[in-house]
């Protein structure tokens, strides 16, 4: 029964992942007084890409060919570890939140290699920048996780969300994680998903040579990565997962609450993106310096017991 529920939850999250992106894009467009694409546009994009032929660069090797599979499977593997609707996720026997960080690193590693593999300067540039940003994100995420760990005594993502009134340390950790998430999901002010301007793109530069279903898999991978991060953050700020055996009504309520939390985060991110300009690449270290200080505040306030 529980396993069934968990599988259902997994499928629900996979299917809902592109929706978040659609909602963010729609909110952004509406804030800019534009009509905007339909909320379901990411789904249309994926379907469209899956039905297209594919062009592969003749200078690329097998690394380029397998990268989409690695990206998608690493995102899915990370998704299985996320606490969302059902409590007591059995998949957490396979890994904790630190493992999620490393699993994402696997997908990123291959995507960065694929960027270099095509031999275009864009790809190499994107890879270099992506790895640069990611390496700075890692210590900040680790500090935030550490501050939560000090209170929960576990790095199991589910245990990191501590029920009860929100503590100061949780707020700092959440702020730190939001900054990490913005960078990891390639959003403003670190990266801009909407641009294809050579000098500013990071993630888009890496995947420039992909087309057809390979591109669809990579896009799906990044949608899933986004919902993984949003889900983790939502759980940390306000844990709401319920036990699978507590009946259908609480489970549906929990699912609705989860959806609401993630939706709220998506709207927050959309607002942030509209009001922030992109940062120079060489200010990324300052951005993460700030995130790291928030992480340190989180650790200190957690040590103070607040």
């Amino acid at each position, binding site marked *: 029964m529980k396993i069934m529920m968990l599988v259902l939850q997994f499928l629900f999250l996979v299917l809902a992942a592109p929706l978040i992106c659609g909602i963010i894009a729609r909110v952004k467009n509406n804030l800019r007084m534009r009509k905007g694409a339909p909320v379901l546009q990411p789904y249309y994009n994926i379907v469209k890409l899956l039905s297209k032929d594919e062009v592969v660069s003749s200078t690329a*090797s097998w690394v380029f060919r397998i990268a989409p599979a690695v990206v998608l499977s690493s995102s899915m593997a990370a998704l299985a570890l996320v606490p969302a609707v059902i409590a007591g996720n059995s998949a957490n026997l396979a890994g904790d939140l630190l493992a999620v960080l490393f699993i994402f690193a696997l997908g990123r590693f291959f995507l960065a290699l694929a960027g270099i593999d095509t031999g275009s300067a864009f790809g190499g540039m994107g890879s270099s920048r992506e790895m640069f940003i990611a390496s700075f994100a890692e210590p900040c995420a680790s500090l935030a996780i550490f501050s939560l760990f000090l209170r929960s005594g576990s790095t199991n993502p589910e245990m990191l969300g501590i029920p009860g009134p929100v503590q100061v340390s949780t707020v700092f950790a959440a702020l730190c994680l939001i900054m990490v998430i913005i960078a990891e999901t390639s959003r403003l002010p670190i990266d801009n998903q909407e641009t294809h301007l050579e000098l500013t793109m990071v993630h888009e530069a890496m995947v420039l040579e992909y087309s057809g279903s390979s591109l669809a898999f990579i896009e799906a991978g990044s949608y899933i990565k986004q919902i993984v991060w949003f889900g983790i953050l939502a759980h940390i700020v306000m844990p709401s997962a319920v036990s699978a055996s507590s009946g259908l009504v609480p489970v549906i309520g929990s699912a609705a609450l989860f959806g609401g939390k993630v939706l709220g985060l998506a709207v927050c991110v959309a607002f942030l993106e509209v009001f922030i300009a992109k940062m120079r690449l060489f200010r990324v270290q300052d951005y993460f310096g700030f995130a790291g200080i928030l992480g340190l505040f989180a*650790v200190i306030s957690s040590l103070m017991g607040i």
Partner: protein
Amino acid sequence: MRFMADPLSVFFLAVIGLVSVPSLVYSAGYLHGQFTRRRLILLHSLTGIFMFSMAAVVTSADIIAFLLAWEIMSLVSFFLVLFEHEHEQSVQAGLIYVIMTHAGTALLIAAFMLMYRYSHGFDFASIGVACASMPQDVRNLVFIFLLSGFGTKAGIVPLHIWLPYAHPQAPSHISSVMSGVMIKTAIYGMIRFIIVLLGVTEAWWGNLVLVLAAISCLVGVIYALMEHDIKKLLAYHSVENIGIILLGVGACMLLLTMGQTYCALLALIAGLYHLVNHAAFKGLLFLGAGAVYKATGTRDMEKMGGLIRNMPWTGALFLLGAMAISALPPLNGFVSEWLTLQSLFLGAMHASSGGYKLFLGIMAAALAFTSGLAAACFVKAFGITFLAQPRSPQARDAKEVSLSMRAGMALLAVPVVMLGLGAAWVVKALTGVAGNVLSLDTAGVSFGPNALILAPASGSQTYLSTPLIFAGLAVFGAGVVFYYRRINKRAVRMFKTWDCGYYRLSARNEYTATAFSKPFRVAFAFLLQPYRRTHKIWESFYQVRSFKYETHTTPVFKKYFYDPLLQLIFSAAGFMRRIQPGSIHLYIGYIFATVVLLIALMRKF
């Protein structure tokens, strides 16, 4: 001279064997046609003595045997660094190496003499007894001597200066043994002499080791990012990985003084685990780099590219090693870095004061930073070397290396995978070793509910299972492949890379290693102090024919630490010259004065 084989020694013997055997297999192909027969015999006998001396280091049971083996190991490895002495770099590297390693040995001898003063015996058992009754300031002094002596061999910052010169200069199979195993004997020395014999009583010892470890991690990986010589890059990563190992060992030392034996045990297991992992993947990577060197005749990454097409086996095996060292699941580097993070976290949880908790948390963040930077560095190392288009004729014409070289690499690829997937078994085996080191009864200690799942702290619900992660990745990956093969019937067309309508996209348009590391150079400018040099070659007074543009980074440790030290030594030598003017009368006077002084001293004691 006595020898022994307790669990710690056996563990290190296993590590030595793990790397030595594959590199010997590899050397058969690697050395083919490179040297004359006489030099080959010399090289093989030196290699044999080298491996044997390492085994003697980790099994000796008294300090005389230990020092003897240690010196043989140092000298033979010096000869091996110097083996290709027709290159000027080798001579230079050998010189730096022999000076540094002997300075280290001198410090060790000083430590051993202090220990002997209290034990009056050379064997470890009597030293262990005597160490317990040493005055605290002597213990501190012995610790400092041991740490700096072994630290020189291990290559911790700022004593790492020789490592990036010496390791790459030796023949590649020797580089792999030096980086994979020889520097680990220093870790053995630290564990044996500091933790087992001396006994950790002071908290600042562990703090010092942790701080040095974190600095080594970060400095090692940042310098590696700047490096475009593929073997030098790997050597800098040895500095980094020694730092990661020492994070585990240092956390163990710190936690021992707090009485947290369980956390200390976990930290030591994490350190030992990373030690064997590093031996496996660094051995593999050095062998891979050697294969690239053999095939292209260069170690400069900027002249490589596209090698994966001509050298598919080497490429795939190097990629595996690169993934492992970047701590990507489900391979071995991931498990040990995860365990180190967990042990730092758990140690912080049980640490005695808030300051220590914060300190250990920052250490964990430093480790996370290191693994992120290492992943970036290996995207560069693998991507620029093996992917895209060849950047030089040598790279274009490279051929796959011989069977024995591939077999040597494959022999090291097996433990890279197995140590990752069999994490729970490895931890179980290491529990015995670490328990023996800390003289704990580990019969009831278990780090996991079954043979698939690791659980660093019972009851905390923190789990890790690399087989399950691998299964997950494999299932989803297989789904994608299935989709490509069966469901998706769309055509795949090969076409040239998008060139913005330029139509002449060549290897010159590719991103280079220098360009790849540019953001890091800017971000870490405070440490690297990069500078540029532009040369203009003038056609005439008005016109520049061509530009030559170079970027360099300042060797900070050499410039601000070793150069002033060298200056100091030179000026001291200059002073000594003044009292040695060559007059025999004066010398006789010196001898007379010494004799008088000695007699006077004899009377006093």
